[in-house]
């Protein structure tokens, strides 16, 4: 009574303070029983905070406090039934007849029953008629990787994730169900707590066509509660023009109301080394190969003067450049978070710090994050809240690793018999290459990013089930880069130091209104979930840069003090206006039918065709609920789904792509000039993806074994294609809606709880995805990639990311010359004989995870695999050159060259002869000639299986913890990228060095390999 009274007073005070709350007149019940109890995890007996305990048949419910405790003072008399529920646990009903009670809750290992976030609303998983995969935040926590999206690798069917390189916070490839497009973006839409988040790489510093950063590394993965991946059209069409590449919805942690503050502290320390290090031919080997090539060249062309040979080839020294290049890199991570809630509001505050060095000098990454999530009920009907993420990232960039003035190239390419320093102690440089030590010591490329991602919302419950939500979101990013090349590195020598400063601002503003109606009626027979809404979206990108050359001293780095200075700027703005509606109806818990429609208007498109309409529909049948299936006693769940719909794409093309333009800046003699730069296309409109999906979900053995299978067929048409036009037009290409791409595939996932006993638990997750990509329609071939070598090609009838090379059939054992496939049988090797010899897309990707726990010890390991992709090994391309490159050394593979009749090898005879470049099987094409080393012998199988993580943890026993008033301490050790099984001959098969362009995937070119990391860490909860 007194308790209640105090609560009432407090409630009254709250009303007075806020002056908006509506007092609820309530009658005081007569007290017939008092009950106290504890809700604990059935597994580890740990208290569960925030569980809801309700007396069945009444509206009386309370939640548990931080210690899992709850109490009832009620008008009900014993015995009565409690209903206890908590997200992630199976709802439990318990008849109580006296106090106190302990209620164990079992974790819900089946994910079939929980709630999933679908477009603009939530739905119980069992009713969902879409292909949506949910990932718990636990899966991605405490990994030595900055970006949460990178951590989804191998965890979700239909999602292919590949790190481009081993740079901390570096770029990744993330595709949901394949590459849908050629010129428009193929990245999914990321939504974090309702904010449409920009995934545009802000780094301006040239990194040799590597994607400079992963913009989503600005989010601390440990702040994430769950991630939903929306894959099929029924799920994504509601996002209309943004949804064609799939949608990733991230929900961050929020406190629970009526829970006491909980503070958690996480930290880990890591030590990384490269999974593999470069090896080059030794000094004597290099000299011998060079001499052999020179002798052969003169043999081939006797008109040449006698060869000049390197004297004392066997006695040449070898200089190791890699000892200084690689290092044991440190990773440090600290996180502090608190969450909790009062009766009316809840909060989550998280702070994070991550510092990670690359395994190759001098790259590094530091990130500070802060998050505040807060929700409060102003009245019983009006809820407002906010989610704010602040982050500051700092990257030490290593510019253009794959250019001759980059760190890796400068260490890898110079001939190993050449000394690193000149006799006078200065840095030695050869040919085009800089000195790697000079670069490591003097490179100064600093990029600092600030990111604010936040929204505020208000949600008003008009009548029960009918809610109006208005949300105002912002993603404001700013990247400030300062680069300085002093006179000790090649880039700064000639200009007496050169500095560049870039400021890149990216602003995404989104406002949305959603009216949502969720109602169950007719004794639960009918479920309706309907919504209607609109969004207004603006994207503004602005750049300013300043460069200066000529500095008085190396310590003076500011552009302001340079002798000559120049500047540049750009601005692009695009807008999107959308209206949408969605209805989902479920009958009798068995049949669900969905329909949605979205209309989008985009400022990017031609005035004639700005608006696009994207409908979708889906159907789900829970066959497992039918009596005749139930009688089989096999299935605990059996659901069949089908969906079809359209979604659009406008990302990745310029803001003014439809307008005819003369660009400015074509200046001469310090006078302003203009010149034609873009052809108008008033009919430019949406690229559209039509997707069909069939899915089946099974639950066996009391839902301990779950299987999800999906088949999809996506057809993307009216591609936003830069169609090549004849150069005589004065233009290179014309953006128009032309072409089509198809992706079809199968996804299969198994979740199994193998053992679940009091002390021992073992779960296994296996998933595998197959995707087949094919360009169905294209105006003409588009060849690109590898700095104009056109190794990548887009061709009708083939997959995107195909490689075109001269196919080497064999090396003639008699002559030692390479023989290539003469495709057009004209007896000559010309550019017409280049052919597609593979592509960079894996056929299969997947993961295999096992989690085991025995009492206080837990162990988990996770394998990732991909199969069927090819890698163009550019290091081989350059360094197995047969003697053609005077300033470049050799890789050991060159030693396998043909030397005498009868040798069986795929590495042809060394020669630099260039006569008769069209003759097949002649010496000229061995390395140079028309083939120009673009031989299929440098294209390798990139399939691999990798033990991504292996971790072992220990929870300190509760008895000990109680003494020091700490609720949980877990200590763990973990290894990342411990083992790799592959036939790939380069350093690391997980690589994509030219990833800044989505159509040039699969190159390995002087790239930082993935780190092998050992870490130890602790999770402490107070």
């Amino acid at each position, binding site marked *: 009574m007194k308790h209640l009274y105090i609560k009432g007073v407090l409630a009254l005070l709250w009303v007075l303070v806020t002056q908006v709350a509506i007092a609820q007149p309530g009658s005081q019940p007569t007290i017939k029983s008092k009950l106290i109890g504890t809700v604990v995890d059935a597994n580890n007996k740990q208290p569960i905070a925030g569980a809801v305990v309700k007396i069945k048949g009444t509206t009386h419910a309370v939640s548990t406090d931080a210690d899992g405790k709850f109490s009832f003072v009620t008008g009900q008399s014993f015995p009565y039934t409690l209903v206890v529920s908590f997200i992630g646990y199976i709802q439990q009903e318990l008849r109580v007849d006296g106090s106190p009670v302990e209620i164990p809750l079992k974790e819900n290992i089946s994910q079939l029953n929980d709630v999933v976030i679908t477009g603009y609303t939530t739905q119980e998983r069992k009713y969902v008629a879409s292909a949506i995969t949910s990932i718990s935040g636990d899966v991605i926590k405490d990994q030595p990787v900055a970006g949460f999206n990178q951590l989804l690798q191998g965890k979700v069917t239909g999602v292919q994730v590949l790190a481009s390189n081993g740079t901390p916070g570096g770029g990744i490839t993330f595709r949901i169900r394949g590459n849908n497009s050629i010129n428009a973006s193929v990245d999914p839409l990321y939504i974090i707590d309702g904010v449409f988040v920009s995934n545009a790489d802000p780094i301006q510093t040239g990194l040799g066509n590597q994607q400079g950063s992963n913009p989503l590394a600005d989010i601390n993965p440990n702040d994430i509660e769950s991630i939903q991946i929306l894959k099929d059209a029924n799920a994504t069409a509601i996002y209309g023009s943004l949804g064609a590449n799939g949608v990733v919805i991230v929900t961050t942690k929020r406190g629970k109301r009526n829970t006491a503050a909980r503070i958690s502290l996480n930290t880990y320390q890591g030590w990384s080394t490269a999974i593999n290090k470069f090896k080059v031919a030794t000094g004597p080997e290099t000299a011998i190969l060079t001499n052999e090539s020179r002798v052969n060249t003169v043999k081939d062309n006797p008109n040449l003067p006698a060869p000049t040979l390197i004297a004392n080839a066997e006695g040449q020294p070898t200089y190791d450049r890699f000892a200084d290049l690689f290092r044991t890199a440190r990773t440090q991570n600290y996180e502090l978070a608190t969450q909790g809630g009062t009766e009316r509001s809840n909060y989550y505050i998280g702070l994070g710090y991550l510092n990670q060095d690359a395994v190759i000098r001098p790259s590094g990454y530091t990130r500070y994050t802060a998050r505040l999530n807060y929700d409060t009920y102003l009245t019983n009907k009006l809820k407002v809240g906010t989610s704010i993420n602040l982050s500051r990232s700092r990257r030490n960039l290593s510019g253009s690793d794959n250019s001759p003035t980059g760190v890796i190239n400068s260490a890898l390419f110079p001939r190993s018999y050449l000394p690193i320093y000149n006799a006078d102690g200065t840095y030695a440089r050869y040919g085009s290459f800089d000195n790697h030590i000079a670069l490591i010591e003097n490179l100064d490329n600093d990029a600092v990013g600030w990111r604010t991602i936040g929204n505020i919302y208000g949600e008003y419950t008009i009548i029960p089930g009918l809610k109006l939500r208005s949300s105002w979101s912002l993603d404001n990013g700013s990247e400030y880069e300062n680069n300085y090349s002093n006179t000790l590195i090649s880039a700064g020598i000639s200009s007496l130091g050169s500095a560049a400063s870039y400021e890149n601002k990216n602003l995404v503003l989104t406002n949305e209104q959603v009216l949502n109606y969720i109602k169950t009626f007719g004794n639960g027979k009918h479920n309706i979930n309907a919504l209607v809404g609109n969004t207004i979206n603006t994207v503004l990108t602005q750049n300013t840069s300043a460069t200066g050359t000529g500095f008085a001293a190396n310590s003076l780095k500011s552009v302001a003090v340079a002798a000559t200075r120049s500047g540049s700027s750009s601005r692009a703005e695009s807008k999107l206006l959308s209206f949408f509606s969605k209805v989902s109806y479920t009958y009798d818990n068995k049949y669900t039918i969905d329909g949605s429609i979205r209309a989008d208007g985009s400022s990017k498109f031609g005035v004639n065709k700005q608006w696009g309409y994207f409908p979708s529909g889906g159907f789900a049948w829970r066959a497992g609920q039918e009596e005749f299936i139930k009688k089989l006693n096999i299935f605990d769940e059996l659901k069949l789904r089908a969906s079809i719909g359209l979604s659009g794409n406008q990302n990745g093309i310029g803001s*003014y792509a439809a307008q005819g333009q003369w660009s400015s800046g074509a200046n001469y003699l310090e006078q302003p000039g203009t010149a034609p730069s873009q052809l108008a296309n008033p009919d430019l409109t949406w690229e559209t993806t039509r997707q069909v999906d069939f899915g089946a979900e099974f639950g066996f053995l009391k839902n301990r074994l779950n299987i999800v299978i999906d088949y999809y067929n996506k057809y993307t048409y009216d591609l936003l294609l830069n169609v090549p036009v004849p150069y005589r037009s004065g233009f290179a290409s014309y953006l128009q809606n032309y072409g089509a791409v198809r992706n079809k595939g199968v996804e299969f996932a198994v979740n199994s709880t193998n053992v679940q006993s009091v002390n021992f638990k073992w779960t296994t997750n296996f998933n595998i995805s197959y995707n087949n990509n094919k360009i169905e329609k294209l105006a003409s071939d588009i060849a690109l990639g590898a700095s104009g070598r056109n190794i990548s090609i887009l061709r009708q009838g083939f997959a995107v990311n195909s490689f075109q090379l001269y196919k080497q059939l064999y090396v003639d054992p008699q002559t030692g010359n390479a023989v290539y496939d003469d495709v057009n049988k004209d007896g000559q090797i010309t550019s017409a004989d280049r052919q597609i010899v593979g592509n960079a897309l894996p056929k299969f990707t997947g993961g295999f995870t096992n989690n085991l726990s025995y009492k206080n010890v837990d162990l988990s390991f996770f394998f990732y695999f991909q199969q069927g992709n090819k890698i163009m090994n550019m290091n081989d391309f350059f360094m197995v050159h047969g003697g053609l490159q005077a300033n470049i050394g050799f890789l050991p593979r060159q030693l396998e060259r043909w030397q005498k009749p009868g040798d069986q090898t795929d590495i042809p005879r060394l020669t630099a002869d260039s006569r008769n470049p069209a003759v097949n099987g002649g010496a000229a094409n061995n390395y140079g000639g028309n083939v120009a080393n673009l031989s299929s012998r440098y294209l390798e199988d990139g399939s691999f299986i990798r033990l991504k993580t292996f971790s072992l943890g220990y929870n300190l026993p509760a008895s000990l913890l109680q003494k020091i008033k700490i609720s949980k301490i877990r200590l763990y050790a973990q290894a990342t990228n411990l083992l790799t099984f592959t036939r790939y001959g380069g350093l690391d098969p997980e690589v994509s060095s030219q990833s800044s362009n989505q159509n040039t995937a699969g190159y390995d070119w002087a790239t930082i390999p993935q780190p092998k990391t050992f870490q130890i860490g602790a999770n402490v909860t107070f």
Partner: protein
Amino acid sequence: MKTLYIKNILLVATVLVTASCKKYLEVIPNNALPTESAITDAGTARAAIIGAYDRVQGYYASSYPTLGTITTDNVVFNGTLSEYLQLDQNAVPTDNVITVSAYQSIYRAINSANSVIAYVPAVQDAQLTTVEKNKILSEAYFIRALGYFDLARGWGGVQLQLKPTTDLTVLKGIKRSTLDQTYDQVLADLIQAEQLLPEDATTRNRAQKSAARALRARLHLYRKQWADAENYATQVISNTKYSLVKPYKSFFTAPFQTAESVLELAYSVNDRNTYWNLWYPSSAGGQYTLKPSDALVTKLNNPSIGGTRNTLVAGTGSSVYGVLYNTTATGTDPSYLIRIAELYLIRAEARAQQNKLVEATADLNAVRSRADAGATTAVGQGPLLQAIEDENGVEFAFEAHRWFDLVRTERAGAVLGLNNRNYWLFPIPYSDVLSDPDVTQNPGY
């Protein structure tokens, strides 16, 4: 009544919403002009011709001089980029980056010139006098002539695009012309240009009457019209605006724009020419992709061949490098299009061909004596023509000359050992062969 009221409100609301949607979706760039209003007044007309010069810079800064040098015995490949290796080996695939870039950039310049020719006459603006209008127009004619001339000598007869590309339909049905037809178009444009271009005593970085005459002299030389070549060369040489400057290196020493230049494209710190980067070694901040051949270095260092032209190279031993483009700190090296020395050698060759051997020898010696290389020892028409060829090779060692000279005189086989005549023309870009039904590839590619 009430329903009508509501209906009206809805109607008005719909109209307002539709209008505001439309307005909301309107975005205007701040760094580009809509094509429709690209040339409408004095300011935009001036900007358009400036833009056309910028486009000429686009291919003369780096790609075109590279095509004229690394393909010959003067310059060898010393870098990592295979597009240069391909040119050095004269094994040029259809997607060779340098040939593609040059071809594309030339047509970009032509499209700019075509736009000026098409739209400037219609501009009505008191600020734009007839005199200025004519100047702008004639410069456009000159640029178009230069573009087609540079295409013709590299790729043979090409497709003649004489209207600005407003949409793709203007491209339809235009086939490749013959080499003669292309040169006829160059001549027609040069005649227009020469009529209207101004001439003053100082301008060397924009087209003037003399530049048109000099290009015409070169055109006649290429077409073996010796008398015309001699005539037009004489017209330029006799202009006191030009002289052979001494020492040799002064024309490529900042601040440039010497009396040597008939036409050179100027650069500034805001509009840089980084071609030096391809010539300088990495120890001096360059890439060192283009390296003077040993044979050339020997010639340059021979006082009776190179004379003071040995200042074209620096460095020692295996690290000799070319320094014609040398403003490593500022990037202001000009692109040398026409120097007065060329007119002397054009006239020497034209006269030698007409058997005016004394005059021819005098012209040749004018160039040699400027370089302190002494008088030529060649006697007789054949040896004199050979001496002129050799002189061209040394005088313009790192400019867009030697390759085109050897092809023009059909000597590429004898001098370079490139006996397959198909390879004397560059290939039409791979992408054009795929995308253009009206184009045909050069034979042998």
